C-alpha cells in the first residue's frame, strides 16, 4: 500500500510547486535522496512521526520534559536599551522582543529537538544514538538527552569545529558521549553529516540518527520543525499577551535553519508577520567566503534533500565559511528554500565582523552574551526595522529568536573583540 503510493508519487513531476505537493516536499524542495539501504528506515521514521510524535500521549510526555527539565516556556524579554541604540528616536523600531532560547538547559534551542527525537528513539526500541554537530550545541543537547534516557551517544564533529568549539567538546565528553573528530573535506558540519550518514547506513537497524537541523532527507525537516515549533507557538502567545498584537516581523539566524523554522511555524499563517532569516555572509558574499546558501546558492541535492546549496558548475559542493560554526554549512533546510521562492520569507546575510560587533553591543546593552550564530540576526535588526517601517509607514515591533548563548564562543570572542575597561 505504502510502496505503491510512493511509486505513483515518484512519477509526478519533481518540478511540482505549492505546499500541497508530494509527501516529503515543500514545493519543489525536500525529498529523500539517500542510499537504498536507508529508505526503509526513513519510511519507518515517517510513520513514527505521524503515529507517535504528533499524537497526544507523546506530546504530553515531551512537553512535561520541556517544562521540568529544559525550563520551558522560555521567557520573552523586551530589549529596550538595544532598541534605543539601534533607533534612538523610535522612528522605525518601536519595540524589540527576544525569545530567550538561550535560557534553555544546555544553552540553545537544540535541546527541544534532541529531547523529542531521543524520546522517540527510545519508544522505537533503538539502542544507540548518533548525531552530527557544528557549533557543538546540538551535540551537547543530544549527549544530554542520551544521558537522561540512558542511551549510548556518538557525535560526529569536524576537526575544525572540534578546535574552535573546545568547551562543547569537553561538555559532550563529560556527559558520556563519544566525540568523533572528522578529518575529511572542509572538516566542518557538512563533513560531520557525511560521516554520520556513513555510520547510520552501517548501523541502521539499531541506531537512530538524531539530525539537529531542519535539513536532511524526509521526514527530518518536518520532524525537526514539528518539534522546534514550540518556539514560535510559545512566542506567539507571549507577544499577544504582552502587546496585544502580533509583531511586524519574526527574525532568526539560518544555517540549516532549525530555530528559524521553529519560530516561523508559529507565524506562517499570520500574513501580517514578515519573516526574516539571516544567513552568514562570512567575509562578505562577494568574497566567495561565506555560508549564505539562500542568498547566493543554487538548487541542488545535498544530504538527502533538494534545496539550495553552494556548489560549482560541476555540482561539487563548495566549502562554506563563517566565524560561526553553527552557520558554517553549504546547504539549508528545504522548507526555507520553499519560503524563499514563494516570497513568504526574506533571507539576508550578516558578515563575521557585523556579527562580532553585535555580540559586543548586545552584551553591554542587554547583559546577554549571545552565541555567534545568534549575533547574525542581532546585527541586522536595524536594517530590517528600517525596511519594514518604510513599507508600513510606522515604527514596527520586532520579535527575534535569541537562539543560543555565547559561552561556547568565549575563546573566539576574547581573541577577536577588544575588551572594555569599564564604560
Amino acid at each position: 500500500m505504502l510502496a505503491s503510493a510512493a511509486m505513483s508519487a515518484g512519477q509526478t513531476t519533481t518540478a511540482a510547486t505549492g505546499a500541497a505537493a508530494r509527501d516529503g516536499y515543500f514545493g519543489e524542495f525536500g525529498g529523500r535522496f539517500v542510499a537504498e539501504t536507508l529508505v526503509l528506515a526513513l519510511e519507518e521514521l515517517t510513520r513514527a512521526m505521524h503515529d507517535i510524535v504528533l499524537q497526544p500521549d507523546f506530546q504530553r510526555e515531551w512537553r512535561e520534559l520541556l517544562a521540568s527539565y529544559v525550563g520551558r516556556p522560555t521567557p520573552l524579554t523586551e530589549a529596550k536599551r538595544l532598541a534605543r541604540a539601534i533607533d534612538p528616536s523610535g522612528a522605525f523600531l518601536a519595540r524589540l522582543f527576544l525569545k530567550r532560547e538561550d535560557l534553555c538547559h544546555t544553552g540553545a534551542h537544540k535541546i527541544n529537538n534532541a529531547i523529542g527525537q531521543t524520546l522517540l528513539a527510545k519508544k522505537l526500541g533503538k539502542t544507540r544514538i548518533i548525531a552530527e554537530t557544528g557549533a557543538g550545541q546540538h551535540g551537547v543537547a543530544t549527549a544530554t538527552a542520551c544521558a537522561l534516557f540512558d542511551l549510548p551517544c556518538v557525535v560526529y564533529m569536524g576537526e575544525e569545529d572540534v578546535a574552535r568549539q573546545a568547551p562543547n567538546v569537553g561538555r559532550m565528553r563529560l556527559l558520556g558521549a563519544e566525540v568523533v573528530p572528522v578529518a575529511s573535506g572542509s572538516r566542518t558540519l557538512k563533513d560531520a553529516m557525511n560521516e554520520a550518514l556513513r555510520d547510520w547506513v552501517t548501523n541502521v537497524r539499531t541506531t537512530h540518527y538524531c539530525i539537529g537541523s531542519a535539513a536532511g532527507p524526509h521526514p527530518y525537516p518536518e520532524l525537526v520543525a514539528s518539534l522546534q515549533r514550540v518556539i514560535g507557538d510559545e512566542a506567539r502567545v507571549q507577544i499577544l499577551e504582552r502587546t496585544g498584537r502580533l509583531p511586524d516581523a519574526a527574525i532568526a539566524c539560518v544555517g540549516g535553519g532549525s530555530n528559524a523554522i521553529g519560530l516561523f511555524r508559529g507565524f506562517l499563517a499570520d500574513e501580517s508577520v514578515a519573516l526574516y532569516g539571516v544567513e552568514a555572509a562570512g567575509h562578505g558574499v562577494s568574497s566567495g567566503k561565506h555560508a549564505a546558501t539562500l542568498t547566493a546558492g543554487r538548487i541542488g541535492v545535498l544530504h538527502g534533500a533538494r534545496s539550495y546549496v553552494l556548489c560549482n558548475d560541476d555540482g561539487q559542493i563548495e566549502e562554506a565559511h563563517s566565524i560561526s560554526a553553527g552557520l558554517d554549512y553549504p546547504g539549508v533546510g528545504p522548507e526555507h528554500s520553499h519560503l524563499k521562492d514563494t516570497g513568504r520569507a526574506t533571507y539576508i546575510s550578516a558578515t563575521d565582523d557585523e556579527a562580532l560587533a553585535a555580540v559586543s553591543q548586545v552584551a553591554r546593552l542587554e547583559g546577554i552574551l549571545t552565541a555567534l550564530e545568534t549575533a547574525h540576526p542581532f546585527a541586522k535588526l536595524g536594517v530590517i526595522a528600517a525596511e519594514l517601517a518604510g513599507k508600513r509607514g510606522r515604527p514596527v515591533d520586532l520579535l527575534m529568536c535569541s537562539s543560543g548563548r555565547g559561552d561556547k564562543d568565549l575563546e573566539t570572542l576574547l581573541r577577536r573583540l577588544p575588551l572594555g575597561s569599564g564604560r
Partner: protein
Amino acid sequence: MSARIDTTLAKLRAEKRKALVAYLCIGDPSVDESVDLAVACAEAGADILELGTPFSDPSADGPAIARASSRALTKGGGLAATLAAAKKIRARTEVPLVLFGYANPIFVRGDERTIDDAADAGIDALLVVDLPLEEGAALRRRAGERNLAVVPLLAPTSSEGRAAQVQAAGKIAPVGFVYYVSVAGVTGAAKAPLAEASERAGALRAATSLPVIIGFGIATPDDARAAATKADGVVVGTALVKIVEEETTAEARRAGVTALVRSLRAALDRC
C-alpha cells in the same frame, strides 16, 4: 545504449559464466591514467566498467573510495571529466560502461543534458547511489528516451515490495541489471555476508527475471566466487581503488589492477 549491457549479460548467461564489473574512480591518479586503467580492466577480463564520478561529499562510500574521490577532484576530476573520459574509453573498447555517481552533479548539469552527454559519450547506463526509486522518475524518463539504462539498487534492508517497484521502474527506462548491495554499510565494508547475499540475489533474480549483480565487500577471488554463486555477477571497486592508491608508478598501478582483474576473472570462471 542499454542493449550493450543486455547483450553482454545474456551472452554470459548462455555461457553459464558470471559477470565481473570493475569500478574505478575516474581522475585518480589522473583522468588520463584512469582511461588507461579502465581499458586495462576490460582487456584483463572485466565485462562491465563502472566509471566512478568523484563527488565532494561521497556519503555512501567508505574511506578508500572517499579518499580517491577527493584526490580525483584535485586532478580535475568530476562529472564533466568522467563524461570526457568515457568517450576516450569507448573509442578503445566495446565493453559496457556505467556512469556511477551522486545526484548533485547530475542534477546541476541537468537530467536531460547529462543523459544526452552520456549517450553521446557511449555510456550505456547510469547508477546514482543517492537517487532511490521514488526520486529518479525524471532521470529515468529521459534515459528511456535515449535508450540508456538506470541501474536500481536493492539492499538487505529493502522492503518486500521493492522488487515490484524495480520492475515498474523498468517500464520507464531499462534497468540493465539490479545492483544488490550485500551489506548495510558503505563501500569497502569488511565483513559482508556474501553467501547470504548470494541467496538473496538468487531469489531476486527469480522474482524479477532481471540480472542481479552483487556489490560491496567483494575484494578477493574467494569473495567473488562466494557472492557470484546464485547471482549474475559481482562488482569489485574498493580493492581496485586501493591498488591505485598504494602503487607508486603508472606501470605498477596498471600491473596491479590487471593482475587483480585476471585473478577475479579466473575465480569466477571456475564457478
